[in-house]
């Protein structure tokens, strides 16, 4: 695949990375990675993921706090249940589950986010572009039943 994959990174605003990493994420994230900060991973509605997927994301990474360190106590674990099921479910209808990845990180993990993103990107590159559910583009005029 010649194109670089389009990635979306959801980051919980309470689980910032180490200062240097956070600065890198905030200012120097490669263009193919779209950053979306959320108030808590528990706030990530599967609809957010669906939006990313339908809009053509080749991979979605969710970065949340470590278990038991959630600012809202259980947001990250609740999110894990839902998002895992959602990725399983998308896999059922044509979006490989490896394209959705959940990451647990905290301040101590210096330099990890870069490595993780690079590894994820490599994984997605190997999978190739995700075209199955990427329907949210202007392509057809008129209804499907027209």
């Amino acid at each position, binding site marked *: 695949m010649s194109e670089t994959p389009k990635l979306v990174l959801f980051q919980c605003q309470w689980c910032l990375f180490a200062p240097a990493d956070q600065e890198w994420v905030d200012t120097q994230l490669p263009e193919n990675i779209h950053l979306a900060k959320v108030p808590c991973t528990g706030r990530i509605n*599967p609809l957010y993921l669906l939006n990313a997927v339908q809009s053509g994301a080749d991979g979605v990474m969710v970065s949340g706090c470590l278990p038991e360190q959630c600012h809202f106590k*259980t947001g990250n674990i609740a999110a894990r249940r839902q998002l895992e099921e959602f990725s399983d479910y998308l896999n*059922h209808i044509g979006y490989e589950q490896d394209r959705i990845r959940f990451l647990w990180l905290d301040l101590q993990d210096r330099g990890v986010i870069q490595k993780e993103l690079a590894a994820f990107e490599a994984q997605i590159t190997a999978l190739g572009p995700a075209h199955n559910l990427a*329907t949210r583009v202007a392509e057809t005029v008129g209804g499907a039943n027209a």
Partner: protein
Amino acid sequence: MPDIDALKAEAKRILSEGMVDMVIGFKAGDTPLHPQPAFFKTPDEVDQLVYNALCQNNLATYLTRFPKNQKIGMVVRGCESRSVNALVFEGQHPKDGLYLIGVPCEGIIDWRKIVEQTGEEVFSIFEQSNNTVLVESKSGFFTLEKETLLHESCSRCIHPNPISANVVIGELLPEGDPALAREKVAAFASLSMEERHAWFRQEAERCIRCYACREACPMCYCEECFVDHITPRWTESGTTPAGMQGWHIVRAFHQTGRCTSCGACERACPMDIKMTYLTEKLNEDMRRKYNFEVGLDATTPPPFSTVTLDDKSRFVI
């Protein structure tokens, strides 16, 4: 088949004794193919009550329409009783405001499958004891195997008997085998990614977004559905691929841990869109991962509203 007279007698009794304000059941429709949901308020009205394999709606969908202080009686099958339990768990009606008359269910017949074989003008339908259905239509008499007429969701039903009903009319049936549902999901999962997606796309693209699936589902009672939300808009409106697929993906996903596999969505669909292959997958996952089946009682929370630290999940490091 439950004894219809016993069913009527019980419905009359709870009405006349003032135990309930209303009994929700079915009455004969304008053709034998379409019995209608009915709301009986007096014992006399109960004479119209019918119950047969063509009663295709999940009556629990009407439960959320009535005030919580209203005492409601309902004729329930296995799936309906579980939907009621799930609704009670979600606080949609108090348990003691309900009187459930249970009937063990031998499966719901798909009227479209009858019409395909007998023509549209059907005069009468008899369910016979030897698992056949005798249909009298304009083109003559037909004896059809009931097995072949059942809705898919019914042929793999696990819980045909009503759960937590106040009274059960008729003899209990043997429980179904969860393996049947598992097989179905496994068979779909064994297809290639492209085949699975092609199936999904092909089913979703017939959608006209009439939302009959939503309205027929007892668990779809949200005051504002996500598709009606304007700011932000969650899905594309209209019948674009993104809009139709988004609707089908999210509608089913919102039923995770809430769907009782009753198949009312599929039966309501005017475009014959298959939907249970989505919800079955989610239900199977809930059984497999969390040992959870919805509606077996009205107190166990579904997996998505509980959290534990010991989930076995590929997301845990």
